């Protein structure tokens, strides 16, 4: 018996074929031509229409092998030397093995610990941490069942850091506002604008073929192909000859990691001295240019920011910097500085705020928002109908604790907070302090709010509830996470996940969850919602999918909602937790009903049809991002969280002045003396870069950007087929090694050959990788993707063990971006490499 179901993933909607209870095929969602009303963009005498299909990211094609992975957690487990009534042996976390226990035992132990800790210390002694995106769907997402449950316990939440766009969040926000998008810009209709007007695109630290506007699969690949075939010149400023550069056959200008701010200043220098910037725009739309001009010319510090000066920092010859700047000014040039307009590895460096701010300021000098003069990641901004509202997983409407679809709302009264990057430090060496909420989406001022843990009147955390995925492969200097787990202060650790992840075996109790293939849900492709409104315009069409339970949960796994309902039941809170006995299907329907989709299709019809494709209508009127600002008009884009829309300041940006600020008024007012993120952006020499003293010992700069063939730590390791993609992992001696890319000159100097196992090391740790000798990195720069899901210490439980799984972020510094900007800086990292003889 063969049956087909629909579902949705991080990177696209799928059709799932099930035969005799087993999934046999996962393919892009099968749709009918009649579902679409294809849009067409006319440019240069040609018509551009996208293919009528969903283009998935590679790893989604390996979803079936992830579903049945040998890494699935099959049964509830208890660490063998953990006894809740006796010795806990916390120091053995990461070392001891596990024994299978029944669900009853697992739930009883977990509930017993929750009760004990709440009674002894209060709910705030419980904390919990989730990874993002290990599953898709608005009912089951982490902000749903997990946060409702933890809120009921009155736990201490952990702020996420904006790990993929640090510099834009902590920096660019102070140049152009957009705090409601966490520092990244609107991207509406920039595909059409670029096709029609642009003559050149400068990709700066941007590999959209790999990073896909985060969630949009490969729908935008065809746009860049159109632009290439149209003859738009493409320049790639990146230490790595990335996948997009290869696909576009672009001009590669390799620059040193964390030298971007210097290069940007030299481009500004050329425009100022050539007198080729948009003076009217600068005068009418920006603030503080004169101070900037003086700094660029060196009138304030004696150092003119000439191309020759920047050549010494970036490694790009001065003549090329000058020529690039001149071409940029002469031709309609799009700046593509990260997959969503913002992002990119350059914003995750020492003082990475400065690069991101300068990206905004550079393009402001060329009339940011005018035709062909945008900041556009090339991965969002398709024609897209926003008339029909459907909430994303991060919207308040789908947060199970507080959604208006809930009858009983849960408000966590605990004021204490932790911060993900410093969680291990908070446990090991409190007190710790930092500024800013992590995701400061409510105002510019939110970034200046000081936090201290433990907060006065609150306990330290004793119970750690870890849910879905791992940070061993994504945060900084992560050997300290091992130390945290082994601390006696964490009296109880529970881990709830579908797969064995790198943090799973540090838990005392392990609870097996099922995947989004094994439960009911619904979701819109690429629509995360929250601070990234209208993310689905990274796809050619909006597609909302009924995420069907295709098979029963495998082994003894259960859905997250069910697990947490069972815990709530034992806590005497089931009615409260389930909002009076709601099933997942009840929640799905409730979310559907508060959206605009019933205008298109009833819930019953939707369940029959299983998906909705929303195409832009005949009356669609493009409103290119920031055109309104460039032209001094009221904001006409549908950016729903822009707080000035429909007020008397609707022609303004979200900065204090409402203009683009060369001298940031928010920084000037709040942190006037901060010389690491000064009101006027500066190029500040990296503390761990090519000018560091440390380079004598560790001469190579490593960058660890986001990976192409996995998503955070998801899909890697658990979807075995990916191990056969040599850009992802390379199998040698029956082990799937993580590649490190080395220039032939650096390899020759060290006697390293292709496929050698090498050790990457510095004072923070040692990681084994497999050597790929390539011209895709310049000498002196090492490339290895971040986000290995396989922390595999040679000495389990030893926090300084050599890792052979490729978690290169173990090597990265946990020093924050700057004293008041708590962002991570993995791309400012020095190492040495040797052949591994172990």
């Amino acid at each position, binding site marked *: 018996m063969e049956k087909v179901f629909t579902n949705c993933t991080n990177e696209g909607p799928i059709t799932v074929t099930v035969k005799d209870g087993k999934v*046999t*095929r*996962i*393919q*892009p969602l099968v749709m009918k031509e009649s579902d679409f009303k294809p849009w067409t963009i006319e440019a240069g005498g040609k018509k551009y229409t996208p*293919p009528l*299909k969903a*283009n*998935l*990211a*590679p*790893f989604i*094609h*390996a979803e*079936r*092998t992830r579903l049945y992975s040998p890494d699935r957690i099959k049964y509830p487990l208890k660490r063998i030397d953990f006894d809740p009534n006796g010795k806990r042996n916390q120091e053995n976390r990461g070392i001891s093995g596990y024994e299978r226990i029944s669900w009853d035992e697992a739930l009883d132990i977990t509930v017993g610990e929750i009760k004990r800790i709440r009674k002894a210390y209060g709910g705030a002694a419980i904390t919990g941490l989730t990874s993002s995106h290990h599953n898709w769907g608005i009912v089951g997402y982490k902000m749903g069942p997990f946060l409702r449950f933890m809120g009921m316990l009155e736990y201490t939440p952990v702020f996420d850091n904006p790990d993929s766009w640090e510099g834009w969040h902590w920096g660019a926000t102070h140049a152009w506002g957009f705090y409601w998008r966490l520092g990244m810009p609107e991207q509406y209709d920039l595909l059409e604008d670029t096709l029609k007007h642009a003559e050149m695109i400068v990709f700066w630290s941007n590999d959209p*073929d790999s990073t896909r506007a985060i969630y949009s*699969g*490969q*729908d935008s*690949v*065809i746009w860049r*192909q159109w632009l290439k075939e149209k003859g738009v*010149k493409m320049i790639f400023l990146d230490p790595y*000859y990335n*996948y*997009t550069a*290869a*696909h576009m*056959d672009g*001009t*590669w*200008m*390799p620059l040193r990691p964390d030298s971007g701010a210097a290069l940007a200043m030299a481009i500004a220098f050329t425009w100022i001295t050539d007198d080729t910037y948009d003076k009217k725009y600068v005068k009418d739309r920006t603030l503080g240019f004169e101070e900037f001009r003086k700094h660029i010319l060196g009138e304030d510090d004696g150092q003119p920011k000439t191309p020759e000066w920047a050549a010494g920092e970036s490694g790009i010859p001065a*003549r*090329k910097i*000058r*020529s*690039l700047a*001149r*071409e940029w000014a002469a031709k309609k040039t799009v700046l593509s500085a990260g997959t969503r307009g913002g992002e990119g590895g350059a914003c995750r460096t020492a003082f990475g705020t400065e690069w991101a701010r300068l990206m905004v300021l550079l393009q402001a000098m060329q009339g940011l928002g005018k035709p062909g003069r945008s900041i556009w990641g090339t991965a969002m901004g398709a024609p897209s109908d926003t008339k029909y509202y459907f909430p994303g997983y991060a919207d308040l409407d789908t947060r199970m604790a507080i959604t208006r679809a809930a009858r009983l709302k849960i408000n966590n009264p605990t004021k204490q907070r932790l911060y993900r990057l410093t969680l291990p430090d908070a446990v090991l060496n409190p007190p710790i302090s930092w500024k800013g909420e992590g995701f400061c989406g409510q105002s510019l001022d939110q970034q200046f709010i000081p936090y201290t843990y433990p907060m006065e009147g609150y306990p330290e955390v004793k119970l750690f509830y870890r849910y879905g995925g791992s940070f061993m492969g994504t945060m900084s200097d992560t050997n300290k996470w091992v130390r945290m787990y082994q601390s006696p202060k964490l009296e109880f650790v529970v881990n709830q996940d579908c797969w064995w992840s790198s943090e799973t075996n540090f838990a005392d109790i392990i609870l097996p969850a099922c995947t989004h293939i094994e439960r009911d849900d619904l979701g819109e492709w690429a629509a995360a919602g929250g601070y990234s409104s209208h993310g689905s315009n990274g796809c050619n069409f909006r597609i909302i999918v009924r995420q069907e339970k295709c098979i029963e949960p495998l082994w003894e796994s259960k859905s997250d909602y069910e697990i947490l309902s069972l815990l709530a039941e034992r806590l005497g809170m089931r009615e409260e937790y389930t909002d009076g006995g709601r099933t997942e299907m009840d929640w799905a329907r409730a979310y559907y009903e508060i959206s605009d989709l019933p205008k298109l299709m009833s819930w019953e019809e939707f369940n029959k049809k299983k998906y909705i494709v929303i195409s832009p209508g005949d009356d669609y009127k493009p409103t290119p991002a920031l055109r309104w600002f460039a032209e001094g008009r009221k904001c006409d884009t549908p950016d729903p969280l822009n707080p000035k829309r429909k007020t008397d300041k609707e022609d303004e940006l979200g900065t204090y002045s409402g203009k683009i600020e060369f001298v940031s008024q928010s920084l000037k007012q709040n942190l006037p003396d901060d010389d690491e993120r000064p009101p006027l952006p500066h190029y500040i020499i990296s503390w761990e870069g090519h000018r560091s003293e440390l380079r004598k010992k560790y001469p190579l700069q490593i960058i660890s950007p986001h990976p*192409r*063939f996995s998503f955070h730590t998801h899909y890697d390791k658990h979807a*075995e*087929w*990916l191990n*056969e*993609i*040599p*850009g992802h992992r390379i*199998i040698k001696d029956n082990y799937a090694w993580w590649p490190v890319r080395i*220039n032939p000159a650096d390899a020759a100097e060290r006697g390293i050959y292709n496929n050698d196992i090498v050790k990457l090391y510095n004072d923070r740790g040692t990681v084994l990788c497999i050597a790929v000798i*390539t*011209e*895709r*990195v*310049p*000498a002196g720069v090492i490339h290895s993707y971040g986000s290995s899901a396989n922390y595999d210490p040679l000495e389990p439980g030893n926090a300084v063990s050599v890792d052979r799984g490729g978690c290169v972020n173990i090597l990265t510094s946990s020093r924050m971006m700057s004293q008041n900007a708590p962002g991570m800086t993995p791309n400012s990292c020095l190492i040495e490499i040797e052949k591994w003889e172990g």
Partner: protein
Amino acid sequence: MARYGMVIDIDRCNGCYNCFLACKDEFSGNNYPPFSAPQPNKGKSWMRLTEKERGTCPKVKVDYIPLPCLQCADAPCVNKAVNGEVYRRPDGIVLIDPEKAVGKREIVSSCPHRVITWNEEKNIPQKCTFCVHLLEQGWKEPRCVEACPTGALLFGDLDDPESEISRAVKSPGIEELNPEYGLKPNVLYRNLPKRFIAGEVLLADQQEACADGIKVTLKDKAGKQVCETDFLGDFEFDGLAPNQTYQIVIEHKRYARQSIEVKTDSNVNLGEIMLNPAG
């Protein structure tokens, strides 16, 4: 009767491996008698990708060459078969009969493109079937083509004059992978990577600035090609034959002509070329 074929455009391939993974999803653990037995879970996709890196930093090019079974009209695997264990259907699809081919390891080595894999567990040779089991159910294209985001893989009926593929195979630039084998494959390519010569031109009298718009000519016995340097002074000739001697001539009326002999024994990055004022 259709005659199925594929055209693979290397310029459009972005190396995403969707085709490789979709093939695994379709066949790993799935039995489609009488066309194919399950593909092993590890190591044996029937759609392979080869990454080809050319040049030196920063003049680098990277291409991906997808390689399914080329469905040759004159297939050595079919010729090698003695008992119908490999056969060619009237629609051009070459199949290995999973029952008749048990133990026939020699079929693996019959293919010069090395697209036939050996299934150790089942003791049979296996390869791409163009997803014939799906075509028979009315699918329009195999899984790899469905999964391709760029249109790099084009599938269809070569004998249908209305089909996109029949037009594509008649267009300029169509080529065979390893034409020297003479196997008449029904899978054809465009833009297979060849050799390139690149360089960047500087002007000695302009503080070594990038030389924009300088005429560069490539000459060989057959004739010549002309291009202009771009704003960075870069020029490039791609699609050249290997191990050929070419003449690169850089000319501008105000500068002394330069002529450089280049042999394409590899891809050549000439690096910086300084133009000095004439006279």
